[in-house]
């Protein structure tokens, strides 16, 4: 991911705020791919990712006057995208945010039951490529674990940057990342070929 120099970032913001069409287009072109990819990794669905990414870019442009530059534009945009993703899944059957926080505070390692999919595994290998399998399994992770895993292991953000995006303490981030990896590894181990050298 190409990071913007501070000066370049400020120039772009200034021109966008002045309503320059070229600047708006540059802003969208610059961020659409990372934002769309983050949205896709989080939700696992292209159509939904398109909606989330579009909303994130629009909200970013609309709220640009309030951007204080405390974080980079990327971090800020990723925060907006993640929030929109959480909003979009609110009310789904997943563990609620409160439940997740409670379990983390308790420090207990909750085992999450894996569905019995052995019979379909081989067929899956035949018809999907590795990328699809990995994405499919990521999409099954509990939301808050998935978010941290996507940001750290796929998008390559540091702990500190993820703290900025998710507004959570570093301990929470690390614990979520470890749990996410454990669950994902357990799921991926069904596909033995993935782990062959």
């Amino acid at each position: 991911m190409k990071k913007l120099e501070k000066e370049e970032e400020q120039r772009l913001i200034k021109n966008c705020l002045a309503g320059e069409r070229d600047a708006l287009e540059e802003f969208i072109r610059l961020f659409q791919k990372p934002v769309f990819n983050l949205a896709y990794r989080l939700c696992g669905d292209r159509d939904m990712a398109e909606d989330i990414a579009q909303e994130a870019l629009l909200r970013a442009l609309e709220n640009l006057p309030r951007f204080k530059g405390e974080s980079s534009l990327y971090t800020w945009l990723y925060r907006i995208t993640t929030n929109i993703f959480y909003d979009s899944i609110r009310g789904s059957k997943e563990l609620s945010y409160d439940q997740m926080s409670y379990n983390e505070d308790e420090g207990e390692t909750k085992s999450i039951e894996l569905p019995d999919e052995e019979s379909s595994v081989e067929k899956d290998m035949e018809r999907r490529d590795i990328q699809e399998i990995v994405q499919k399994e990521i999409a099954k992770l509990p939301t808050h674990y998935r978010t941290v895993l996507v940001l750290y292991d796929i998008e390559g953000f540091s702990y500190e940057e993820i703290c900025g995006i998710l507004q959570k303490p570093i301990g929470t981030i690390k614990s979520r990342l470890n749990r996410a990896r454990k669950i994902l590894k357990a799921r991926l181990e069904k596909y033995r070929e993935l782990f062959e050298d």
Partner: protein
Amino acid sequence: MKCDRVKELLLDYLNGDLSAPEKLLVDEHIGICPSCREELRKLEKMRHLLSSLKPIEPPPYFTQKVIANYYARKERKAHPLRVFFFGGLKPSRAFAYAGFAIFLIFAFAYLSLSPWWGKARQAVVPSIPTLKRAPSIISAKGIGKILVLPQTTTPDAQGRIRIEIMVYPPSPQEKVWLSLLLSQGMVFASENPLLPHQKDYYIGKLSSPVSFWTDVQVSSQGVQWIRVSCQSGNHKWAEGLLFLPIGIKPSPFVSLSQSDIDAISLLALLCERTGKPLALSVPLSSKLNFSYQGDAEGAIHHYASLLGLTALKYNGGFIIEIP
């Protein structure tokens, strides 16, 4: 160090988060323990799999869509587009009640003025409503309905006309786009410099009727038109077309008789259905005389009959009598 404890530390080991003494202990253990070594290998492999996921490209025209929506939203804030709305986007309760009251008035006026309404509900092609205010048409395509009508009957001092668009989804629709397209003689009053004749609004979920308005600037005389469509994904579920006979008569709207209004609407519908440009011939009143290009004759007869009208071929054109 026991295997369980080492396995707990392996993730931190991979992240480089262990203290020097802890790292040394893990290094020693994996040197002698094949099980933990294998565990570490799998974790490394998984990390590699994740970091090698290929980035995917946003869908085609994504940038244009975002820009169009950016301008649309900006304009909506400056000149609220939505007039009334119930359901879906959660308006305030008072707003919803006011909207509902307005809708009832419209609905009552519409039902009482439209002699074809009863038929239209079963007909393949919904009928043309006979609203007295101005030319209007209900969607001729798809299963939903769109009603397009100017709120004013003459352009104002700045040459502007306010167009009202009412959308009736046939059932709850997801990811709805409302597209407006103007003929060359008109531009949107608050113009998007990119697309002065076109506007695309992302409405999202639409589960009940919604009404919009927008101002258009009329810049030339003649028959102008506005096309409105609604689609979800690639599925276009409603489309409407409104013809505005700008400057055809000294006072373009008020002097038109109801028959003329119906005739223009019918012409619009026929253009739409046959896909052929039809040339309008004057004068308007009671009989609409027009010529057509191509072999649209069968279609003209067919659609005229669906509307309960008869098309008579006459001197290379058709005469359709409005009852």
